């Protein structure tokens, strides 16, 4: 039986290694055609004109992700603090599963909401004629990252030993001062991990951004420009790319970039979570 578990463990690692190898292999094939420098510094992605610059796709991805985090972090951390410190147990038992339910909504449905609800809303508020842009994608991705951020951050806050709080109260500190000076610093690494996981969730999302951000390949000028993220670009073009062409290999190269980013984010999250464990006595 142990052998079976061991085998399944090795199988997972083999799959990961296989994917990485395939990405690398195809990317190398791409970089023999297109120099790495042009790939990383080019702003135009137009395979039909042999232009393979990832910069505008990369900036679009980062723009949408940063926008999403600007919304999701304050709301997510605030909700987590409320749930862990202030909410009555009865309320908390209702709220937490409700928040987790958000994660169960399929991304296509969220994308659809982006088209029919957020799109007209942005048009009305920002007085623009087009609401399918980076801001729309950010709002949707923030919604999708919230459950991850709230759940992980709340666990981190609750993991702060009760003795810390009691010691603080014993010294005469108020609830707010305790929260600010004791609980948040103690739970800090866990909150960072929560945010990192949220970023990981947002950066790899495909369907939602594909539906809501307009997918123009122009270099983004701001949150109100239509953007095309790396994930959306792969989803759009993979369907009809001639196999084993430069374009085909190029899509793997963009996938490799995406893999490196989300790997770095998850790795960083892993590092800080390891740090929290040291924190608890």
């Amino acid at each position, binding site marked *: 039986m142990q052998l079976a578990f061991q085998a399944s463990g090795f199988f997972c690692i083999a799959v990961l290694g296989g994917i990485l190898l395939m990405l690398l292999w195809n990317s190398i094939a791409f970089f023999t055609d297109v120099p790495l420098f042009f790939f990383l510094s080019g702003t135009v992605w137009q395979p039909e004109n042999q232009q393979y610059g990832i910069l505008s796709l990369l900036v679009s991805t980062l723009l949408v992700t940063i926008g999403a985090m600007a919304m999701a972090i304050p709301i997510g951390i605030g909700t987590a603090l409320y749930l862990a410190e202030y909410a009555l147990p009865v309320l908390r038992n209702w709220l937490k599963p409700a928040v987790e339910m958000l994660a169960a909504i399929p991304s296509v449905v969220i994308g659809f909401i982006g088209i029919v609800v957020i799109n007209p809303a942005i048009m009305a508020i920002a007085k623009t*004629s087009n609401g399918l842009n980076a801001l729309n994608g950010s709002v949707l991705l923030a919604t999708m990252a919230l459950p991850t951020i709230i759940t992980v951050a709340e666990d981190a806050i609750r993991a702060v030993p009760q003795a810390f709080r009691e010691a603080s109260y014993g010294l005469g500190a108020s609830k707010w001062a305790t929260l600010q000076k004791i609980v948040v610093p103690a739970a800090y690494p866990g909150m960072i991990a929560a945010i990192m996981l949220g970023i990981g969730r947002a950066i790899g999302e495909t369907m939602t951004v594909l539906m809501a951000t307009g997918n123009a390949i122009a270099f983004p000028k701001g949150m109100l420009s239509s953007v095309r993220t790396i994930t959306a670009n792969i989803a759009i073009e993979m369907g009809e790319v001639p196999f084993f*062409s430069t374009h085909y290999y190029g899509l793997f190269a963009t996938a490799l970039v995406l893999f490196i980013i989300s790997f770095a984010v998850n790795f960083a999250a892993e590092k800080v979570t390891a740090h929290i464990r040291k924190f608890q006595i």
Partner: protein
Amino acid sequence: MIRKLFCWLCSLVMLSCKNNTSQLIIKGSDTEVNLMVLLAEAYWQQHPKWQVSVSGGGSGVGIVALLNGRADIANSSRPMNAKEQALFQRYGVACDTFIFAEDAIAIIAHATNPIDSLTVEQLQAIFSGQLRNWQSLNGNHLKINLYGRPNNSGTHAWLQKKLGISFCKHVLEMNGNAQIVEAIKLDQSGLGYVSAGYVVKNYQQTGEGFKILRIAAKGQAACSPLDKEAVEQQKYYLLRPLYQYIRRESAQKAQPFIEFIKSPAGEEILLANGYFLVRNDSAK
């Protein structure tokens, strides 16, 4: 018990293999997939022993499936390109071309847009990004928002080629005709291209928040893709043939279906869905 089940499964698999001889597999263009399903259903009612399976995925997907022998007929909203032709030659796969209908591309704008028609030159300037403001066209100082299909779409490839331009980078790429129409309905300064067949079938006519512009080719009067007579006389500029590529090995299987499309019953379905019949002199 399990063995019994296994036997059952085996016989099922064998039966389905046997059925393959009277199965016709059609793959390709998403634009044509709805039409093809209707044709296949009508065909099946006349010839119940034929099982016709239709699936989409895009023109290129259909052509690749034809090459690999996973389809008998590939639907395509664009002609085969040089690379694909080279592949067919290299693998020694022969196929026949059949233009079964024509589809018009409609250029649509918001209902409140004062403009009613555009010339081909204006379209070229707008979609290539030279002209980015409505001012010189209708007096409104507004940026032109362009809506189109992504580059895996036959419509995208075809229009780009027909206009002889490269689409500018600001064109929003939407997942299908429906999204373009809905976006244009909301966007006062929007301009987009959709299949006329789609608009006719789903909206009957304009006046529901968007309008179809008339297009004027060089030195000709502007005409609308809804004007059947003009379209049939090839006066509408954005008219494209819809192709079917038939694998030669499957020619015999496909023949009755092709005959059906050409029959009055088939033509009726084409017309009812907003497509146009191919005139002999228009075969390109």
